[in-house]
C-alpha cells in the first residue's frame, strides 16, 4: 500500500481547505449575483500561471507574489462582471450568465494554451519540496510545508471573508443583496457596485487557490475542467449559496477522494461524483441548501 489511511486523511483535509477557499468564492458569487461562474476553474489556472511567471521570470517568492496576483485576479473578476455579466437582462438571464461564463472559460483556455503551450508546469519553492515529518516508524511520511502554509492561508482568508460579510457595512450590503435585490436597491444599496465587488472577491480567492494548486499539481490549460467540475460538485453538495456548506463539502469530498485514492487512483474521481449524486437523490438542494425559490 503506497499511502496509509492517516496520510490520505491529512492530505484530504488540508487539500480540502484550499478547495474550500475556491468554492467559497464560487458560492459567494452565486449567492449575490445568482450566477454560477463556470470560469472559476480556468481562473484558478490563470492565477497559477501568473504565479508561475512571477516566480520563474521575476524570481518573486510565491507567497510574496500573491500581493500582485490577488489584486490582479480581483480586477479580472470585476472586468468579467462589468463586461459580460452586467449587460444580461430578461427571462433567460440565469442560463445566459452560465453560458457567458462558460464562453469566458473556453476563451481563457484557448489563450492560455496559445501562450504557454500544452506542456505541464509546476510551481516550485523550498516549501514545496521540503516537508515536515508527521509519522515516525518504518514508513516516515513527510508533509510538504506548502500543504500547511496553503491550508493556513486558506483558513485565514475564509475567516477574513466571514468577518467582512458579517462585521462590516459592505458585508451587510452584500447580505442584503443576497436576500432580496429589489429591497436592497430600495434602501439605497448600490447593487451594481456590490455585484461587481463580490464577483471580484470571488475571483480574487483563485489567486491563492491557484498558487497552492499549482504547487501541488502539474498543470496546463486543460486543468480547468478538472477543477471546475470538482468545485461545482462541492458547492452543489454544500447547498448553493451556503458558505458553511461549501467549507464542509470541500473537506468531506476531497478527503473521500483522497482515501479512495489509496485503493484505486483511477476510480477515486468517480466516487467523488457518485457521492454527489447519492446525496442529491436524497436531498436535491444539497446538504445545507435552502429550498429553491420559484423559478425566476
Amino acid at each position: 500500500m503506497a499511502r496509509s489511511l492517516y496520510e490520505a486523511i491529512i492530505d484530504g483535509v488540508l487539500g480540502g481547505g484550499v478547495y474550500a477557499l475556491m468554492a467559497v468564492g464560487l458560492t459567494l458569487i452565486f449567492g449575490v449575483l445568482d450566477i454560477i461562474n463556470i470560469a472559476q476553474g480556468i481562473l484558478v489556472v490563470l492565477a497559477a500561471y501568473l504565479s508561475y511567471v512571477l516566480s520563474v521570470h521575476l524570481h518573486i517568492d510565491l507567497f510574496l507574489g500573491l500581493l500582485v496576483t490577488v489584486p490582479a485576479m480581483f480586477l479580472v473578476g470585476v472586468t468579467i462582471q462589468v463586461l459580460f455579466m452586467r449587460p444580461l437582462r430578461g427571462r433567460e438571464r440565469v442560463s445566459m450568465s452560465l453560458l457567458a461564463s462558460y464562453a469566458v472559460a473556453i476563451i481563457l483556455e484557448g489563450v492560455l494554451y496559445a501562450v504557454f503551450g500544452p506542456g505541464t508546469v509546476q510551481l516550485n519553492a523550498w516549501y514545496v519540496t521540503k516537508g515536515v515529518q508527521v509519522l515516525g516508524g518504518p514508513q516516515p511520511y513527510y508533509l510538504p510545508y506548502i500543504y500547511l502554509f496553503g491550508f493556513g492561508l486558506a483558513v485565514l482568508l475564509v475567516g477574513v471573508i466571514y468577518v467582512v460579510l458579517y462585521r462590516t457595512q459592505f458585508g451587510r450590503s452584500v447580505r442584503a443583496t443576497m436576500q432580496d435585490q429589489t429591497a436592497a436597491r430600495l434602501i439605497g444599496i448600490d447593487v451594481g457596485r456590490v455585484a461587481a465587488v463580490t464577483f471580484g472577491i470571488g475571483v480574487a480567492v483563485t489567486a491563492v487557490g491557484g498558487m497552492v494548486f499549482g504547487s501541488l499539481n502539474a498543470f496546463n490549460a486543460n486543468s480547468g475542467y478538472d477543477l471546475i467540475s470538482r468545485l461545482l460538485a462541492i458547492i452543489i453538495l454544500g447547498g448553493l449559496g451556503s458558505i458553511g456548506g461549501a467549507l464542509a463539502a470541500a473537506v468531506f469530498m476531497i478527503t473521500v477522494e483522497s482515501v479512495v485514492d489509496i485503493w484505486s487512483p483511477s476510480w477515486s474521481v468517480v466516487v467523488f461524483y457518485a457521492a454527489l449524486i447519492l446525496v442529491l437523490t436524497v436531498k436535491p438542494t444539497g446538504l445545507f441548501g435552502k429550498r429553491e425559490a420559484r423559478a425566476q
Partner: protein
Amino acid sequence: MSRLLRWGRPALIVAVLAFGAVFPLVYTNALTTTYAIDTLIFVGGVVAWNMFSGYSGYISLGHAVFFGAGAYTVGLLALHHKVLGSTAFWLLPLGGIAGAVIAVPFGLIALRARRHTFVVITIAVFFIFQLMAFNLAFTYGNGGVSTPFASWDPATYNNPYYYAALVIAVGAIALSWLIRGSRFGLQLLAIRDDEDRARGLGVRAMRVKLAAFVLSAFVTGVVGGLWVLFIGQALPETAFNPAYDLSVALMGFLGGFGTLWGPVLGALILEPLQQEITQRYTSGYAGEIVLGGLFLLVILFLPRGLLPTGQEWVTKLGAWRDRRGRPRRDSGTAAPGPAVAGAGAGAAAGAAERPGAGGAR
C-alpha cells in the same frame, strides 16, 4: 404577400430538401461532403438538444453523455460483430436506445433539481461518463474504439454517410415539429414558462420532462452512432466531449432557443465555420477562442437568437410602415405562422418577454 406566407414555407422546405438530396452529386469534393456530413450530424444533435432543453427551459450541458453512449454502443457492436458497410446503419437505433436507457436514471436524478443545480448535475454526470470511458475495461481506455472500414469506392465514399445523416437530421426536425405542435409540446412550454403554475394546472411535470429528456437522448444517441461510423474511431475525450455540449448550446442560442428552425439555422451557420477554422489553423485553441468569442457576442447582442430577432425586426418594420400610413396589402389577412406578424409593436414587445409562448416557430 399572404399567399407568399402560406406557400412560402412549404415551398422553401421542399427546395431545401431537394438541395440536400442532390448536394453530394453536385459537390463531389470529399472535403466539402465531409463538412456537409459534420454539419448534418450537428443539425441532428442540436435539434435533439432543443427538443428537450429549448422546449422545457432546462439547459442540459450533459448531452454528450448520450452522444458518447450512442457512439460507443454502435462502435463496439460494429467492432465485435464485424459489421461492415451500410449494414452498420442498422445498428444506429441501438445507439439511440443506449442513450435513452441512460437518460432514465439520469433524468430521474437531475430533473428533480432546477436551474443552476440541474445544469451542474448534467455537467457532473457528463464527467462521470467520460471517466468511465477512460477507466472501464470494455471501452478500451485511452485507445478508444475503432470501427472497421467500409470497402466503398473512394470517390463516393462519403455519400452513404451523407444520406444517413440527412435522413437522421430530417427525422429529428420532423420529431421536433411534431412535439412542438402537440399537447405534449404545449405542456413542455408551459413548464418552461412557469413550472409551478403548470403543475397547478395539472401538468405532470416530472413525467413530461422525463419523456422529453429520453426522446432527446434517443435522437442524440443515434447521432452519436452515425458520428462514430463516419469518423471511424471513438476516444473518451472525443465521444464524451465537453465542446459538444457547448457547441450544441451555442448553435441553439444563436439560431433561437426553443424555436423549431432556429437551432437548424444555428448549426448550418456554425458547424461549417468551426470546420473551416479547424482546417485553417491546425491547432485547436484558435477554434476555441473563436467559439467562445462568438458565443459572448451572441449572448450580449442577440440574446434571443437570430430567428426571433429577425422576426421582431420584420414586425417592427411593418409597424413603422403602418405608422407612415402606407397601406399594406396583407394587413387584414392573418398570417398563419408567426402570430406576431401583422400585429403592432406592442405584441412584439409581449413576444419579446415570452419567447416560448408566442410567435417564433
